[in-house]
């Protein structure tokens, strides 16, 4: 049961809501199979060979079991839940009623059946029979050569940012809050499925995200393509904090009121010489027989005088044009005809007071392209209208390659044609050709052809119709797998030649890409999720108890494991190094935590590890911290982490009735953590899963919640010994690690499954089982080097092929 199975809610039966009471069900075989160095269950059955029986036969493997435990209820016309199990006589009859027998397997493995009142098979028996059923179907599925189908995947946040970087060289933009950041920092998080955030089924688009896409497109294109208009955006003058004012208080957010004759000024820097427009929104308090007069002044010289005839309710805009040289200038507004007669209580006349209010003031530069153009601008704007090219011809020339890059496949002429109209749209608004291209690029960045990785099938709803991907689709699969980004020029060129799909070229490209700095994305995204390093940002160790923990250490922990992972990738080391690499990377804070002398400062250095305390990811502070609680270690979490992330043998979910146990008024548990957990495990229902999880976790008890070595926990000496269900004993972390290393094929299989899930963007199915086995076998021949797993995945059918949808 190491392969994900799709959940089918329409299974023939399920335990009712009554919660079946199941006793003493031990998933003890989780480790036993592999303990002897043999791959567990399914992995052993590698390739379907025609004519050879699929598995040890029905009579030997299954019939006695069903007869003993099942058919008493499940036979004849009155069969429970209308599930009849006594009709099966052979493997082929089992294969013919797949729905029923898959449910049998699941109910056995999850210990939902037989019901508690009935005699119970041992856990080993359950595992064996469920494994036999699964193996039967997996083998049958392998013969189908089903490449599977990935649901339309939208770019996730990382992929979006990286793709924008590779398209335009734009790494950061001004975010909605005004700060600089990566474009997708503004996007909501991507949901996670099967442990990764690049799974087509759970990557959805909400209106919120759509809105963010539109905003980001505007801001990205503003950075990527320069327009003559961008210089002509009005710059608001801050009159409110102006230095030289003789009177008045603030109006609005940046304006000023002048109650007496006087001038208010602000500095303005003209980027280049030309005719600038100074605009002021103003109003007056009317008094006397004149309107308030406002002088526009530049560097002290009056360039224009206006009568401000408007009142507060409807202020108006007044403008003056002036030629400025490049450089700093003083822009001023002066009130020159103040008028004031105080109120006269004797005559009962009110005060007469003329005031001038400058609500806001802007300076607008003349239109024109900036002198230094962004590199992306020069790359996109390969021609200009004029020189024999009409606007439309120039637009076509520019847009055809741009659409192809953004859609990651050759543009169709009709697609280009639809975009050409944007130069007209901009023209109608009185704006430039460049602006038209900018808007067209915005449209491209919001198109489903960019946001989704589209793979179109001739028969999209025919499950039996499978096909090889075309070269452009393959290029994108490769680049998003290894770089979390779009294909580069080399991949596009190979796709254009129609050569990429050739196995030797595909494999060579994968190896090339792994050496590229962009392969760092695998550490960020694959390792970040496989090893759960990303969750490091969420942990909050109690700093009173673990004062060495601070933000620097938090970052350092993650960096160490990422660098370690990158080293395995870049140096193409055997993946077994993950379990016991004899080197790591540390900086000052980590070296202090690990007790390594002579390393100071924030710089990371590679160090060789001696002794048996450290070596491999399991002794890295990142993993040890992410699997701890804020105030103490959690052997359960650590054990579960090892089972799930390294051995691919997640403990089965707790039986449905466990929570109810707390209804008993039992005494709180006492003693050391280990003693309390052992008390807890006396409860057979808990013991079923915790025996394995806890044993592994106890083996790591020498590491405290932030990964520091310890011999004591408070007053108690650490007991890091344990016994695995298979009977293997260990006396501490080093010996535990040796046991894990002996399960190499189980580990490699687990890693291959995770990488394959990540590469495909879907959960693995039974029909993928033998593909994974092939990958493991091939890796074994190549010393388990990282690239051998990656190239096997890239060459596998699920990666190179797809089929139609089977419908809802």
């Amino acid at each position: 049961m190491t392969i994900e199975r799709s959940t089918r809610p329409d299974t023939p039966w399920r335990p009712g809501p009554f919660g079946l009471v199941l006793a003493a069900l031990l998933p003890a075989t989780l480790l036993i199979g592999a303990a002897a160095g043999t791959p567990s269950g399914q992995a052993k059955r590698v390739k379907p060979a025609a004519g050879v029986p699929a598995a040890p036969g029905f009579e030997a493997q299954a019939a006695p079991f069903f007869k003993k435990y099942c058919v008493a209820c499940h036979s004849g016309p009155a069969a429970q839940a209308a599930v009849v199990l006594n009709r099966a006589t052979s493997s082929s009859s089992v294969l013919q009623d797949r729905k029923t027998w898959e449910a049998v397997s699941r109910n056995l493995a999850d210990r939902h059946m037989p019901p508690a009142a009935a005699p119970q098979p041992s856990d080993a028996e359950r595992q064996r029979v469920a494994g036999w059923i699964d193996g039967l179907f997996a083998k049958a599925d392998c013969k189908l050569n089903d490449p599977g189908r990935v649901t339309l995947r939208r770019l996730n946040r990382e992929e979006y940012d990286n793709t924008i970087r590779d398209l335009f060289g734009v790494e950061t933009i001004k975010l909605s809050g005004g700060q600089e950041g990566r474009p997708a920092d503004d996007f909501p998080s991507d949901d996670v499925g099967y442990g990764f955030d690049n799974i087509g089924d759970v990557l959805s688009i909400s209106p919120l995200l759509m809105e963010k896409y539109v905003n980001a497109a505007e801001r990205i294109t503003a950075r990527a393509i320069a327009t003559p208009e961008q210089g002509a955006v009005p710059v608001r003058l801050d009159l409110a904090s102006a230095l030289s004012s003789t009177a008045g208080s603030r109006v609005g957010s940046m304006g000023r009121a002048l109650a007496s004759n006087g001038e208010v000024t602000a500095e303005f820097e003209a980027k280049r010489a030309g005719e600038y427009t100074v605009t002021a929104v103003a109003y007056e308090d009317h008094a006397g027989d004149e309107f308030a007069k406002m002088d526009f002044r530049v560097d002290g010289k009056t360039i224009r005088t206006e009568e401000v005839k408007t009142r507060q309710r409807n202020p108006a805009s007044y403008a003056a044009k002036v030629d400025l040289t490049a450089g700093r200038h003083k822009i001023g507004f002066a009130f020159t005809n103040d008028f004031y007669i105080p109120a006269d209580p004797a005559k009962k006349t009110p005060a007469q007071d003329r005031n001038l209010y400058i609500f806001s003031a802007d300076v607008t530069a003349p239109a024109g392209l900036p002198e230094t153009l962004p590199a992306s601008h020069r790359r996109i704007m390969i021609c200009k209208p004029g020189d024999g090219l009409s606007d439309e011809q120039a637009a076509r020339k520019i847009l055809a390659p741009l659409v192809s890059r953004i859609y990651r496949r050759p543009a169709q002429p009709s697609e280009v044609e639809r975009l050409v109209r944007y130069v007209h749209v901009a023209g109608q608004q009185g704006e430039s050709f460049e602006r038209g291209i900018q808007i067209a690029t915005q449209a491209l960045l919001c198109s489903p052809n960019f946001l989704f990785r589209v793979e179109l099938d001739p028969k999209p709803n025919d499950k039996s119709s499978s096909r090889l991907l075309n070269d452009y689709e393959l290029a994108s699969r490769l680049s998003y797998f290894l770089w979390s980004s779009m294909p580069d020029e080399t991949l596009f060129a190979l796709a254009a030649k129609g050569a990429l799909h050739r196995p030797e070229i595909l494999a060579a490209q994968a190896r090339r890409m792994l050496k590229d700095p962009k392969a760092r994305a695998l550490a960020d995204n694959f390792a970040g999720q496989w090893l759960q390093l990303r969750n490091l940002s969420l942990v909050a160790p109690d700093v009173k108890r673990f004062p060495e923990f601070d933000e620097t250490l938090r970052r350092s922990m993650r960096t160490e494991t990422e660098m370690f992972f990158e080293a395995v990738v870049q140096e193409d080391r055997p993946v077994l190094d993950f379990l016991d690499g004899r080197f790591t990377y540390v900086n000052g804070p980590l070296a202090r935590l690990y007790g390594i002398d002579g390393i100071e400062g924030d710089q990371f250095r590679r160090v060789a590890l001696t002794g048996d305390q450290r070596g491999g990811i399991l002794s890295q502070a990142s993993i040890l911290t992410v699997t701890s609680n804020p105030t103490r270690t959690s052997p359960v979490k650590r054990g579960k982490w090892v089972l799930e992330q390294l051995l691919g043998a997640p403990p089965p979910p707790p039986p449905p009735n466990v929570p109810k146990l707390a209804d008993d008024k039992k005494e709180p548990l006492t003693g050391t953590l280990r003693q309390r957990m052992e008390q807890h495990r006396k409860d057979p229902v808990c013991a079923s899963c915790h025996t394995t999880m806890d044993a592994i976790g106890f083996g790591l008890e020498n590491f405290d919640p932030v990964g520091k070595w310890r011999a004591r926990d408070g007053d108690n000496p650490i007991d890091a010994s344990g016994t695995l269900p298979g009977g293997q004993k260990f006396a501490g972390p080093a010996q535990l690690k040796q046991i894990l290393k002996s399960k190499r094929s189980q580990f490699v299989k687990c890693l291959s499954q995770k990488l394959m899930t990540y590469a495909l963007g879907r959960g693995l199915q039974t029909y993928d089982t033998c593909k994974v086995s092939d990958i493991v076998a091939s890796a074994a021949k190549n010393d388990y080097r990282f690239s051998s797993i990656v190239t096997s995945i890239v060459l596998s059918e699920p990666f190179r092929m797809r089929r139609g949808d089977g419908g809802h």
Partner: protein
Amino acid sequence: MPEPKIGRRTLLHGVGTLMALPALEAMAPLGALAQSAKKSPLRMAFMFVPNGIHMPAWTPATEGALDLMPSMQPLAKVRDSINVLTGLTQHNAEALGDGGGDHARSAAAWLTGCHPRKTDGAEIKAGISADQLAAQRVGDRTRFPSLELGCERGAQSGNCDSGYSCAYSSNIAWRGESTPVAHEVDPRAVFERLFGGADPAETAESRKRRETYRKSVLDFVMEDAKRLQPKLGVHDQDKLDEYLTGVREIERRVELAERANIAGRLAIADRPTGVPADFGEHIRLMCDMMLLAFQTDTTRIATFMLANDGSNRGYADIGVPEGHHDCSHHGGDPVKQGKVQQINTFHLKQVAYLLEKMQAVKEGDGTLLDNTMLVYGAGISDGDRHNHDDLPILLAGRGGGGIKTGRHIRYKNGTPMTNLFLCMLDRMGVHAETLGDSTGRLDQLI
């Protein structure tokens, strides 16, 4: 010389939120934004806490006049405006044969009343949530049909809960049965989305041009999507449908923004500056966002997940550095239960902050709180048992008048919580025959 008197802050008075309030530019006429004095709109909000509650310190011993239990002391000032509802249940958060995963189910079922399909990714499915149903039916009256807030992003990696995709435990709002609605966690981003977006220096002319372009871009991508649609398989079409819904929603908003031109009228003195380190402050800032959105009638429907279900956040600031989830599995240990209670009280302090602010905003003859129905609670009752009956639920506000408050109402245990939602939807002007597992409408509220 007398100083000129320019009226500012004339609209958003009476709310001393943490941040300085948006101030209206003096030049802007107020009418379009100011709420009608005649009839204030009715709002609906849902606030979710994870991991259950220490129930012995929550449920009042007696029915009728509300006697605040120890956990609820922070609510003393708004006692007369709230009801504690006991006995409500989310039956569909139970295992029902699906085994572990109560945290994932509790969030997914909370507002949907539906039993989420157990899957780690393929074909996720719950049901439409009460808030989204309202948003789809009456959300077009405001610029934003609904607002989704939270303090924790979705999980960054890993399996969230016993074979359930993380989409379940980190979302309570569901637009449709397979589409959860992500929440925003950064108060600054929320603020900018609701009220920002306009450069104060941008002229009306250039803004108009930008909106013209934006509409044209949306037309283009809509056409692109429609060309793509028939070429896709059914599951891919579902994804493209989400995309099309998103595009239509923005088109509508561009038009409304044009009409209201709110962005041009609000000048913001001080904006939130991002996610604060202090968790209480983070919650309160998000509360401020909800309050502002309600007050300006930018939306009438909101959800707020204080934390995702199963959250193991430590609360060191209140002396509980242990993780919340860890404590919630108290195993009957009174020390751990005390810690859960401390966390519960901390959360309620933040709720009290919001409710008091709502009460301070005058609307017509009443207050904003009078014109609100805010549900606060969890989808798990006792965190150790993971039971989904006898849920801790609090209903604040008088729902526009009519909801009698200051009471503890005990319903028969097992009463679907969706029955409460149907009543609330009625008051919002949304008639729904059923929602999730509803069996009728809750009595005794009015």
